[in-house]
């Protein structure tokens, strides 16, 4: 199978799956499983091709840029596709049982519409990670946004609907900012193709404004401080698998596009000042999000605010990867952190979903003794927490370690302080939940039964988050293919 076929399968199978899931609602769950399998195989194939042959490109319709659209798979794309596929498979399995737990008409409605919307979301993500055309990225962003908003609203509660409404306004206006930016870029450069832009873009007022517009829109979609307000209510009130998809995957896509724009298309515009501004906003997100997570009464809100904080870590990649010393360390560290967070956050939200099912609520104060009812889920939460805090040997540790090393190598010690503080705060809010879970309870409560696959997928992802730390050298090698930043990785401790 050539890379063109792999890429085509990645985009077309979830799209066709979504259409068929809408046309034949009863087949939804099987179509999702089938699509997950096909996508998984295609991702593995593409990854092999990229490792063996370097960056893979395909000119769609046979026309190359700038007239046509190019699909491109380099190390970064493949990593994002792998993360998406892992989470996608887990959610497809978890949701087999999650929605069927209720037997009324509403539950059936939610289940029937979840599958096509989920598959559309997956299509959008795959298409986004393979696209090398900034207008095409707009179309994928819109597909992503529509699917995400509707999935939040699927919960049907007043809180979910209000959160979805706020999300839709943010998403739509942000997309328009991005679209206007694309227009200005086209007016200046005559192309919307990323590699062509990299070759010919020169700094100028139109490009500055265009990049500012696009960044503004993408930063709002990625919920970076201070445009993060829409995220906690949306992620907390959505159904559990949707919350996982949102925190793990949906908010990472605009961040990915920002990386492409600033590191590949317009590197000349990334001055140290701009990079530090990104870092400062990231630091603010880490601190603000972590502190808020500490005081939330509901478990899902804790996890949602934690997402705001963890996204801040990702933006630290800008000042650290842009520098000469240790640039690639920071690049790979930040992206490993992205993958680690995706697995850990999914595990946490799935655990929260299990707890909601079993106990009927997610108020932390009243979750005493939940360990006795859901030992597997609480264990998964603990493991995921390990990765989130950054304890070895988890992948969260690997990512943070690389970022810290890069910061030290460049003398940007202020980021070190922020990261350490962030880890401490994360430990605090994780332990707070676990403390309540492990308390003794005199009268055991009668829980609702939980299907094993729901606990199993949560545990599997949490284990992945912890164990993937050992895969970091492999991930770094993958990221090296086509990376815009070069340099060595020093994992052993001493800094050159």
């Amino acid at each position, binding site marked *: 199978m050539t890379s063109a076929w792999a890429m085509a399968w990645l985009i077309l199978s979830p799209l066709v799956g979504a259409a068929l899931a809408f046309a034949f609602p009863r087949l939804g769950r099987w179509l999702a499983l089938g699509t997950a399998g096909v996508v998984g195989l295609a991702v593995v194939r593409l990854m092999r091709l990229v490792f063996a042959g370097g960056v893979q490109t395909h000119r769609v319709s046979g026309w190359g840029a700038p007239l046509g659209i190019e699909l491109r798979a380099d190390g970064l794309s493949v990593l994002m596709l792998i993360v998406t596929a892992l989470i996608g498979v887990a959610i497809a399995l978890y949701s087999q049982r999650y929605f069927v737990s209720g037997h009324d008409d509403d539950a059936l409605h939610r289940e029937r519409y979840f599958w096509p919307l989920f598959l559309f979301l997956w299509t959008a993500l795959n298409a986004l990670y393979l696209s090398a055309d900034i207008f095409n990225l707009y179309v994928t962003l819109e597909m992503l946004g529509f699917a995400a908003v509707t999935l939040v609203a699927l919960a049907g509660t007043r809180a979910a609907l209000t959160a979805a409404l706020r999300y839709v306004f943010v998403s739509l206006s942000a997309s328009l900012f991005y679209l206007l930016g694309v227009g200005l870029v086209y*007016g200046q450069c005559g192309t919307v193709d990323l590699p062509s832009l990299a070759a010919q873009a020169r700094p100028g007022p139109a490009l500055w404004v265009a990049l500012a517009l696009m960044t503004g829109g993408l930063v709002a979609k990625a919920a970076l401080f201070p445009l993060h307000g829409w995220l906690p209510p949306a992620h907390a009130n959505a159904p559990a698998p949707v919350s996982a998809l949102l925190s793990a995957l949906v908010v990472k896509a605009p961040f990915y596009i920002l990386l492409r724009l600033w590191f590949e298309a317009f590197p000349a515009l990334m001055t140290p000042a701009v990079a530090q501004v990104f870092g400062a906003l990231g630091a603010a997100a880490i601190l603000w999000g972590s502190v808020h997570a500490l005081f939330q009464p509901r478990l899902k809100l804790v996890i949602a605010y934690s997402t705001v904080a963890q996204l801040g870590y990702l933006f630290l990649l800008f000042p650290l990867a842009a520098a000469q010393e240790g640039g690639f360390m920071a690049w790979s560290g930040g992206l490993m952190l992205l993958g680690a967070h995706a697995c850990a956050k999914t595990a946490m939200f799935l655990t929260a979903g299990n707890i909601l099912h079993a106990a009927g609520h997610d108020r932390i104060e009243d979750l005493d003794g939940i360990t006795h009812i859901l030992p597997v889920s609480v264990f998964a939460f603990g493991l995921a927490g390990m990765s989130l805090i950054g304890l070895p040997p988890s992948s969260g540790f690997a990512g943070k370690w690389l970022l810290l090393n890069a910061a030290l190598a460049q003398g940007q010690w202020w980021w070190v302080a922020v990261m350490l503080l962030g880890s401490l705060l994360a430990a605090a809010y994780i332990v707070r939940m676990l403390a309540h879970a492990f308390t003794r309870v005199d009268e055991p409560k009668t829980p609702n039964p939980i299907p094993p696959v729901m606990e199993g997928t949560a545990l599997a992802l949490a284990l992945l988050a912890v164990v993937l730390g050992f895969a970091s050298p492999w991930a770094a090698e993958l990221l090296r293919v086509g990376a815009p930043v070069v340099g060595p990785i020093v994992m052993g401790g001493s800094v050159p």
Partner: protein
Amino acid sequence: MPDADYRIYALAGVALFAIGFYSMLVQAHLLRRIMALNVMGSGVFLVYIALGAQTPGPIPDPVPHAMVLTGIVVSVCATGLALALVDRVQAAASEAEPGDDA
């Protein structure tokens, strides 16, 4: 189209964009906020069309035209989605719902 300057249309487009943006943030009525989004979108499309006209050649540049067609379709879809969501929210607000989360 040589020699003519179509930038006035692009300026009109960005003015629409700014007006739409202001209205979207400031209006209280949800329907008007959706209309403001549409105004923003129209502004963006006008900028694209103006760019297409500005390009020298026997015909306007067809690529921005195709992009605008795509954009219009996406915009209609977005409006439909937003309207349905607004209606759901208003329907939910007018009925008492037990066990509401904050």
